[in-house]
Structure formats: structure tokens, C-alpha cells
């Protein structure tokens, strides 16, 4: 079972000038991913490349070397020297990697916190990696959990609520006034870049008609073509205003274009049907006084910005809550991972023990088939069999325990005591020994004393084992011992 790692760069660590050098086109990704999993030590991998991040989520035999290999691989892909990437590339291993993936999926790591796009991108990256066979159980489990976490964060916090940019705020405010925007018409006054963006947002929110008017008819035509609208002559401004529900104004005029006299006429012509004016020009196009008129809702660039800031503040608060959810889920996921790690060991332990039991029982059955056994003999044989099985199973642990010393011994004694739920009586003589450390030394001595009690039987088992020295059982047993030793040392 491998370990998770993350290698990549995001808007946090690299400016776009560096991100764009590493970024992969959509059609490149499958090839890159299949090469990635061919790297030594990399078992599973997926590659996500968006405008704000380029990252590899992988599983390797050991996280650190696998991550380093991935890092080198990425740089080789783009023939980028390490100096170029500087500190832009980061890597996370194990628990940190899990947290990172969860955070990214939940849009906690996004440039605009809570922006939902990343989840879809991550899902498709996962799909692509799956198609080229680069995903395995660990990555699958991690990603699926990440999607679950993202869903939780979205539904349990207000992280994705409230528009986070000026254009969507304009749309949001429009829905506050009109509700459904279908059937509403938009008038764009002046042909600035911002108004194009806002008009596009309104268009995708369902408005029916977009009219563009500008002092220069040519510019009006150009912009109208770009946003799928129609151009209207500047002289018709008042009539166009009366027909519009949403007005986006961004002329370069020094004096207000949308004045109270015009709007008194306009509102009356509209029979006071509500209209919304978004004035994103500086200096402002609209006289602030028109906002006082019945049915006119006027917002300038500062107002929109105020909403953006308020929404972002709300999201930041929600992000803290989201981070707590991620932490909780990451801890749970680690528990699952650990469980997965220990599964092979448990299986080997069970196999080994049942192997011993099986072999001994078989031997006894064979012996018993050779001649008739009296009931007493049979009882004795059974007793002998169970004792033999227990001793054989305990032989190796006992030997390992005896041959160890110092801190290792202390750890092992503690581990054995905990694992078998032993209550070890304090060995009285051990306490009398000069210079004996209490605790470990005492426990070790008592273990030793206990062992010497049945040395005879141990010798018997040892002889038995010696006879089977080259048997597969012995090899399994010694292999197990080596593995156990490693485990203990790690513990």
C-alpha cells in the first residue's frame, strides 16, 4: 500500500508567467499521466492543469522519493531548469497531501474561495487518469472522499453563496429587483470593457435583448456584434432607456449622461416599472439623484464592490468552518489508510498461525492412524497437541524478545503486553538487583524468568523446528520475524 503525495504549483506560489510554462493542454494530459505512472516508485497518479494550478496527485511506495521523481518528471516534460521554477513547486506527503486534495476539491484553496469550477475540473482530471489506467484503490478512495468533502463543505457552509465579482454582483442585484431575468432587456451605454463583461453575464443569466448605444456608432456596432446584441443611435438614448430594464453605463463622458430630467421622462414613460442602472464609469455617468426616483435602482462601481467585499468576507468566514470539516474528514481518511496498511500484516499473522495449527494436527492424525490409541492416550495426545501449537506459535516472539535488549526490549515488552492484554507480575528478585532500572528491566527479567520455567518444552519445540529448518513453514516464520522486527522498530 503506497503513500499519497502532491506535487504542483498554484496561484499561491507562482505567478501566471511561471504557471503558464508548466500548464498542460487538455489533450496532453492523458499521455503525461500514463508516462507518470511509468516512473519508478509511482503507482497511481492524476494530473490537474487549470489556469490557477498545475498539480499531480499520486501514490508512491514512499511519498518523498516518488514526489521527487514526479517533480523531476514534470520539469523534464517542459525542459524547465530547476532555477526557473524556483520555489514555485511544492510537495506534500501523506496526511498533508490528503488535506491538500480535500482543500482543493472544496475550493478552500481557490483564488476565489468557494468557486465551484475546481470540483468539476478535478472530477474530469480523475476521469482522464482513470481512462488511462493511472488510478488505483488509494487515489480512488482519496478522490471520492474529496468529492464527498467538497459536497459537505458546500452544503454545510455558506462558502459558495453570494456573487464574488462585480459582473455577477450586477446580475445578483438585477435578480433582486426582477427575479427571473428572462424577457428583460439590457441597454449598454458606452462601449467599455467592463460593460462588455457585465453584459455577457446578464446574457447568460437569461436576458432577452441587448441594445448597445455609443457616441461613435462604429464602436456600438462592434460591441453589439461581440455580445450578440443590436446597436442603436446615440440620439435615441431616452427612448432606449424607456425600453430597457437594466442599464449598464460606462461612457468616458466628463459630465453625467443619465440626468434627472431625462429619467423623470423615462420613468413616467415606463409607468414606473422598476429599472436598474449599473454605473461603472469613472467619472460617473449617472447623477446620484436619479437613484431617489420611484422604481429606479442605481448602483455605482463602489456599491458593487461593497457587495463583492461583503460576500468575500462571508465566504472567508465560511472557509474557516470548511477547514474544520476538511480536518475532520482527513483524520477519518487517515484512519482508513492505516487500516489498509495493517491489513497485509494481519493476514500474514493469521495465515502463519493457522499453518502451524494445521501442520501439527495433520502430524498427530497421521501418527494416530498408524495404531489404535487408548482414550487416555488420545486425551494426552490432544493436550500435547494444543501445547505444541501454542509453543510453536510463541517460539519466535519469545526468541526475539529474549535476544533483544535496551530500548528495543522495552518497546517489545510493552507491545507484547498491550497486544495480548497481559498482566505481568512484578518479579521480586529483579528489584533487588543493583542498578536495575525499574520498569523495563523488571519486566524484561520477569519475562526471562517466565521463559526459563518451561525451558524444557522450548527445547522440544526448538528441536522440532530444527528438524523442519528447510521447510516452508520455517521460512514463513523467519520472514514474519523480520517483518515484525521492522514494525517494532518503527513503532
Amino acid at each position: 500500500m503506497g503513500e499519497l503525495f502532491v506535487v504542483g504549483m498554484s496561484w499561491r506560489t507562482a505567478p501566471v508567467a511561471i504557471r503558464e510554462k508548466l500548464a498542460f493542454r487538455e489533450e496532453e494530459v492523458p499521455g503525461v499521466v500514463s508516462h507518470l505512472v511509468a516512473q519508478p516508485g509511482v503507482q497511481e497518479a492524476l494530473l490537474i492543469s487549470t489556469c490557477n494550478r498545475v498539480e499531480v496527485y499520486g501514490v508512491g511506495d514512499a511519498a518523498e522519493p516518488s514526489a521527487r521523481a514526479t517533480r523531476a518528471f514534470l520539469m523534464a516534460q517542459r525542459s524547465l531548469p530547476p532555477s526557473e521554477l524556483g520555489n514555485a513547486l511544492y510537495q506534500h506527503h501523506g496526511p498533508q497531501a490528503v488535506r491538500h486534495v480535500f482543500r482543493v476539491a472544496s475550493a478552500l484553496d481557490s483564488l476565489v474561495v468557494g468557486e465551484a469550477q475546481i470540483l468539476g475540473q478535478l472530477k474530469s482530471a480523475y476521469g482522464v487518469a482513470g481512462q488511462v489506467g493511472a488510478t488505483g484503490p488509494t487515489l480512488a478512495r482519496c478522490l471520492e472522499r474529496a468529492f464527498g468533502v467538497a459536497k459537505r463543505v458546500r452544503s454545510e457552509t455558506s462558502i459558495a453563496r453570494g456573487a464574488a465579482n462585480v459582473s455577477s454582483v450586477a446580475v445578483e442585484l438585477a435578480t433582486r429587483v426582477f427575479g427571473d431575468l428572462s424577457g428583460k432587456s439590457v441597454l449598454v451605454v458606452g462601449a467599455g470593457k467592463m460593460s462588455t463583461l457585465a453584459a455577457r453575464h446578464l446574457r447568460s443569466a437569461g436576458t432577452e435583448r441587448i441594445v448597445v448605444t455609443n457616441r461613435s456608432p462604429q464602436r456600438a456596432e462592434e460591441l453589439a456584434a461581440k455580445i450578440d446584441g443590436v446597436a442603436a443611435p446615440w440620439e435615441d438614448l431616452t427612448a432606449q432607456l424607456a425600453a430597457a430594464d437594466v442599464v449598464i453605463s460606462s461612457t468616458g463622458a466628463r459630465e453625467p449622461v443619465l440626468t434627472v430630467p431625462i429619467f423623470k421622462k423615462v420613468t413616467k414613460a415606463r409607468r414606473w416599472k422598476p429599472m436598474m442602472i449599473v454605473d461603472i464609469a469613472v467619472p460617473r455617468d449617472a447623477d446620484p439623484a436619479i437613484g431617489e426616483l420611484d422604481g429606479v435602482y442605481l448602483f455605482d462601481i463602489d456599491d458593487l464592490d461593497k457587495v463583492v467585499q461583503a460576500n468575500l468576507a462571508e465566504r472567508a468566514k465560511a472557509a474557516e468552518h470548511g477547514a474544520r470539516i476538511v480536518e475532520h474528514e482527513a483524520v477519518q481518511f487517515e484512519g482508513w489508510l492505516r487500516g489498509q496498511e495493517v491489513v497485509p500484516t494481519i493476514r500474514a499473522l493469521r495465515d502463519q498461525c493457522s499453518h502451524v495449527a494445521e501442520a501439527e494436527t495433520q502430524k498427530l492424525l497421521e501418527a494416530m492412524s498408524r495404531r489404535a490409541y487408548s482414550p487416555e492416550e488420545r486425551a494426552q495426545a490432544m493436550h500435547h497437541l494444543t501445547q505444541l501449537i501454542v509453543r510453536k506459535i510463541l517460539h519466535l516472539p519469545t526468541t526475539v524478545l529474549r535476544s533483544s535488549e535496551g530500548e528495543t526490549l522495552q518497546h517489545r515488552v510493552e507491545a507484547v503486553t498491550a497486544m495480548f492484554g497481559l498482566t505481568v507480575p512484578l518479579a521480586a528478585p529483579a528489584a533487588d538487583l543493583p542498578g536495575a532500572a525499574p520498569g523495563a528491566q523488571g519486566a524484561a527479567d520477569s519475562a526471562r524468568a517466565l521463559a526459563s520455567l518451561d525451558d524444557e518444552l522450548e527445547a522440544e519445540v526448538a528441536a522440532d523446528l530444527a528438524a523442519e529448518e528447510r521447510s516452508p513453514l520455517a521460512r514463513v516464520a523467519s520472514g514474519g520475524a523480520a517483518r515484525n522486527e521492522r514494525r517494532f522498530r518503527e513503532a
Partner: protein
Amino acid sequence: MTPQVLVSLLMSAVGSAAGAFAVEQARVLSVSPSPAFWVAVTLYAASAACFLLVASGRLQLRALALGLCAAAALAHAVDIGWRGTMRVHPAQSVREALGFLAFMLAAGYLLASLRYRLSLAGVVLMPLVLGLLLVARLTPAGEDSLGLTALGRVHISLATIGVATFALASALSVIYLMEDRTLKKKRFDTVSFREKGAPLEALDRTMHRLVWFGFPVFTAALILGLVWGSERGAGWDRPEYPLAFVTWGAFASLLVTRTAYGWRGRRSAWLTLLGFAAALLVLLVYLARRVGS
């Protein structure tokens, strides 16, 4: 005016009225309320409290407040049904009609909530419903209810339906005015902005439809009331007559100005509130007369 202030004003008005009537309890006759009535009162009170918390910023309590309101309306319906089996008609008397008005408000509110987020209306309506219910309970039934003619019953039924419609329209007007103010003054950090309530246009449209429905009903009730009054030989100097005509006039001018000049929004909202306030005063006059007689 913040919703909290509105509500506390309403509550204190209702509270003092209830206190005045409480001393008259000895004169209460007719059928005593079923347990469902008290369940409904408790639930309405709980719902009102929840809505107040929602208005103070705890938006997550919204579902609970609505749930409590629905449960209360259900218990209320059970009570009305049970009284029906005791031969007490919802239009038997002003007192029964008030209880029924409260029920219609709650039910209408719940129906509207299926479509829009109207927590702010709940803040206004729930205490109103609760107050109406308590006032209705604490008012003496009156002796003349025994001699109620068919004409009288129809008058009371229609007036109740008309006023309930106007009450819903006024609740929407209150929200309209609050949301309008929020947008005009750009108060983006207030509950009425964060709550994402019904859009202004929808509020205005619904308000008008309600008035279009309520106005003919109320007009018919008005005429029947006049006929009924003259049958009983009542004089023309009763205070409810001018008040009722203020109500009628407010809604009539609302419809006329809308149709002829396209007035809407704030102006319509204020006219609605004026009309409804006058209608409430009519009811108070009736109640005061009952207590005084």
C-alpha cells in the same frame, strides 16, 4: 423601521388590547376552545419567536420557523373543524371571524412561502396571527350572534376573506418597502439583503393580484354590511362606516392609479398599508363595542 421595532409595536398594541379584554372574560360564552387551540397558540408563539431570531441574523432557523408555523396552522384547522362539529360557524361572530382571519393569514403565508423566501413577512405575520387569535379568544361572543341572519353571516364571511387578502397584501407591501429601502440605501449587510427574499417585481405583482381579488369581495361585504345595518335600524353615525370607506377608498384608488397611470411599487405599497390599517381599526371598533355593550 427595523422589523424588530415593527414587531414590538404590534405586540405591545395587541398586548394592551388583550389586557383590556381579559377582565371581560367572565362574559365569554359559547363553546370553550379545544386543546388543539392552545397547541396552535403555543406553536404560533414559538414560530413568531423563531422568525424574530431569523430577522436578527440566524438565517438557519428559517426552516424551523416555517415548520412550527405549518404545525400551528394544522392545529388551528383542527380547532376550527372541532368547533364546526359544535355548530360554531367561522362567520358566527366577529370573534370567530377573527380566529378564522388568523388562520387564513397563516395558510396564505405558508402557500406563498412554497414559492418565495418570505421570512421577513413571517416576522410581521406570525405575531399578528397570534395576536388576532388571542384577541378573538378573549373577546366576549356577544348576544346578537344568536340572532344572526343569513345576510349577516355572508357579510361577516366576505369581510373576513377580504380583510385576510388585504392583510397578506400588506405583509407583502411591508417586505417590498423594506427591500426597496435596502436597495436604495445600499444596505448590503442587512438581513433583508442577505436573506435573498422575493424579488421586488414579484412582490409588487402578487400584492396587486391579491388586491384585485380582495377588492370586489370587500366591496360586496361593505354593501351587505350597509344593508344589514339598515335592516337592523342602525344609524349612519357609527365610526366603522367612515373607516370602512377609507379602506375601500385606499384600495379603489390603488387599482385606479395602477390602471390609469401605472403607479406601482412604493406608492401602491403605502396605499395598501393605509387601507389595511383602516380595516384593522374597523375590527377594533367592533371589538370595543362588544366589550362596552
